[in-house]
């Protein structure tokens, strides 16, 4: 498994070099430029100082001239943006059992805040096409790679056949430019899922390669009635006056905290709006596709009821004041807009100002909902009731006897650092008396940007064996119920929250810091806050070679992944 990773990275690097424009290949660390440089319009491939939105920290002279230890990289740099097709908004593709969808990934023109960018799209759309199918359906996606990087597609949250999980070197070879790979999808679980590349997510996913899959229930009355259903994909993008802020060529930059964007987007646009009638109950399907940002979503004070988690409904619907959603997580929420008026969708967080040592309330406008007139169908009564979902409870019942079992695996989340910038080391040594449970904002843009996986190696440490990250290859069997205790070590060098994702299986969170979870849903990704110990119970159903990893794109590439193998005793050769 380790070999795969090494080869994968190397391969990516080798393949990228020939397609980069001459300017990129000539880039060296003396070519970077800083703010104030006279730039013509259009994206620039030169390293320049990381955007410092809202920072109070004075610039440290020692850091002014530093750039990351990797070249600057923008896919499609030098392309004539006007020659690229303009991406169009996402469309819903209804798929019946046995249907085939032909979909590519390609370079597109996107216009964001009035500025044109060379970006990427699935099926020419932003977000990618919303694939909609009934639970139990099987469909085929014939995928063609028309971007200038090798890629794969991972179908996040689906318990599909291992061969189609989209992991380069493990389940398939990278899909090279011009090549096609046929994915067979199946949808055993109702809910909202999403697809994205599993190579250089920090670049490809960030540039627009993401889309939803909505799996409809086949049961009557599975959900309460609502007036409408709306997918909301949350994302952010990092730009400055010179265009898209470049990515790392050989490896992702921003290895410490992940790449926070400074432009917030809902469904790929910055001015998302929705017109509804007053009195409507709207069902929102939320997906967070950001590289690292965790959102705290409000709907302008409208009441919110959480219906479902990543892979199932909750045991009990629950009213909440906001929706906290980490990268790769999904939540289905019903929101009641009782009055006429305008409701702002916002991300409201307490950012940290590391220089002043203070919490700073930060609110990002994500979109606007305008309610007028009055809804033809009144679902207020159904909304007011928080349903108990007996089907979910029954589904989880068979696992309750395992809730308090001793962990089968103990995982410690930590980081090993090497040759970090001296100033970063000094800063971090000073700023280590308090780490927040979640990093809601980019609190240290320069230091974060300068770090790559060479300096900051995020590590999953198996405390039972001492093995680290891809040295780990847990062996399970179909039918196992595996408890993993994940501890996010606050004593590691600059700890951070990690959204932990398990491929190909589903799990429930049984305990949070030792406190039993009293309202579960099946999940595939869970927030592990700093200092916390989270117990998850994995329902091992799906044979094959899989991964579990942090879903912060830059952490994944900085090593934060492990392997596990599920064997099916009834099929001795399966998964081998």
């Amino acid at each position, binding site marked *: 498994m380790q070999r795969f990773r090494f080869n994968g990275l190397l391969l990516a690097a080798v393949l990228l070099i020939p397609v980069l424009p001459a300017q990129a290949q000539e880039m060296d660390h003396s070519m970077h430029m800083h703010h104030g440089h006279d730039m013509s319009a259009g994206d620039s491939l030169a390293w320049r100082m990381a955007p410092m939105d809202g920072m109070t920290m*004075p610039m440290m002279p020692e850091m002014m001239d530093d750039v990351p230890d990797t070249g600057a990289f923008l896919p499609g740099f030098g392309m004539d943006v006007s020659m690229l097709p303009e991406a169009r908004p996402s469309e819903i593709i209804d798929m019946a059992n046995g249907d085939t969808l032909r979909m590519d990934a390609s370079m597109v023109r996107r216009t964001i805040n009035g500025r044109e960018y060379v970006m990427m799209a699935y099926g020419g759309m932003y977000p990618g096409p919303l694939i909609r199918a009934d639970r139990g359906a099987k469909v085929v996606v014939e995928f063609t790679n028309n971007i200038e990087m090798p890629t794969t597609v991972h179908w996040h949250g689906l318990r599909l056949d291992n061969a189609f999980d989209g992991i380069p070197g493990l389940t398939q070879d990278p899909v090279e430019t011009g090549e096609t790979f046929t994915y067979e999808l199946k949808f055993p679980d109702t809910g909202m899922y999403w697809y994205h590349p599993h190579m250089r997510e920090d670049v490809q996913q960030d540039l627009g390669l993401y889309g939803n899959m909505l799996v409809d229930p086949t049961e009557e009355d599975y959900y309460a009635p609502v007036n409408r259903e709306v997918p909301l994909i949350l994302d952010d993008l990092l730009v400055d006056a010179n265009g898209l802020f470049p990515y790392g060529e050989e490896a992702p930059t921003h290895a410490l905290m992940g790449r926070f964007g400074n432009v917030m987007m809902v469904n790929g646009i910055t001015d998302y709006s929705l017109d509804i009638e007053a009195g409507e109950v709207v069902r929102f399907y939320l997906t967070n596709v950001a590289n690292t940002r965790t959102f705290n979503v409000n709907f302008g004070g409208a009441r919110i009821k959480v219906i479902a988690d990543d892979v199932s409904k909750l045991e009990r619907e629950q009213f*909440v004041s906001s929706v*906290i959603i980490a990268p790769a997580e999904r939540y289905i929420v019903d929101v009641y807009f009782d009055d006429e008026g305008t409701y702002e969708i916002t991300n409201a967080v307490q950012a940290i100002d590391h220089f002043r040592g203070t919490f700073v309330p930060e609110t990002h406008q994500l979109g606007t909902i305008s309610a007028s007139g009055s809804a033809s169908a009144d679902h207020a009564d159904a909304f007011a009731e928080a349903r108990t979902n007996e089907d979910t409870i029954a589904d989880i019942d068979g696992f309750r006897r395992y809730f308090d079992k001793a962990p089968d695996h103990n995982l410690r989340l930590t980081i090993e650092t090497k040759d970090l910038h001296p100033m970063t080391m000094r*800063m971090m040594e*000073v*700023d280590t*008396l308090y780490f927040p449970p979640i990093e809601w904002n980019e609190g240290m843009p320069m230091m974060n940007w300068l770090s790559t996986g060479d300096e900051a190696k995020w590590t999953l440490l198996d405390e039972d064996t001492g093995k680290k990250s891809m040295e780990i290859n847990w062996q399970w069997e179909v039918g196992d119920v595996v408890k993993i205790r994940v501890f996010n070590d606050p004593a590691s060098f600059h700890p951070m929250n990690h959204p932990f994702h398990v491929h190909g299986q589903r799990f429930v969170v049984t305990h949070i810091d030792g406190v039993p*979870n009293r309202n579960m849903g099946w999940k595939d990704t869970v927030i592990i806050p*700093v200092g916390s110990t989270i117990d998850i119970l994995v329902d091992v159903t799906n044979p094959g070679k899989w991964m579990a990893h942090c879903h912060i794109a830059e952490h994944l590439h900085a090593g934060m992944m492990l392997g596990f193998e599920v064997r099916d005793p009834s099929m001795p050769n399966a998964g081998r």
Partner: protein
Amino acid sequence: MRFLLPRIGFLLILALAVMALPARDVDSAASEADTTCAEGVSPDYYEIELVTTRKVSGARLAKGVGEVTYVQSPFGISLSEDGSYLVNIDVSMSNVKLADGKQLVAWVTTPQLDEISSLGALDENLQVSGQTDFNKFLLVITLEPAGEEPGTMWTGPVVSRGMSRSGLMHTMAGHGPFETEPCAVYGY
């Protein structure tokens, strides 16, 4: 440690840490500079150690702790609408002999004392639980007349107090790499 911290900054931080943290935490905080992970680190990173004021008879050697956990939500952690962490605080005290007619009451307050709220009176096991969404706060245990509902502010002497972990986050102006940055420029 490869890069020595400027001495004044380091001493200041150390002093702060000593004032507010139990000994084992000082060790872990100071050793975070080396990048290996220490063994035996408490998972209770945000736990609040209550330090006695030694001023109240019967409680001069009082021990206490405020355990901090997230209020249950479907999201694992809990936030108030403005994004502040919403936490449970489970307070327990020991080594206290209460005089007749007295009870202990737990409070949370912002560091500026401009907002105070009561978590309630400690029960016969010297325990009480409550919630707060203050970003930085002090946990304060005071001696109050028995049987009375806690008001908006304590009346009796402070028995013990401790600070939330977030209270340790302090300005870098004038410290460390910013030694030459005068705090006054930034208004503090």
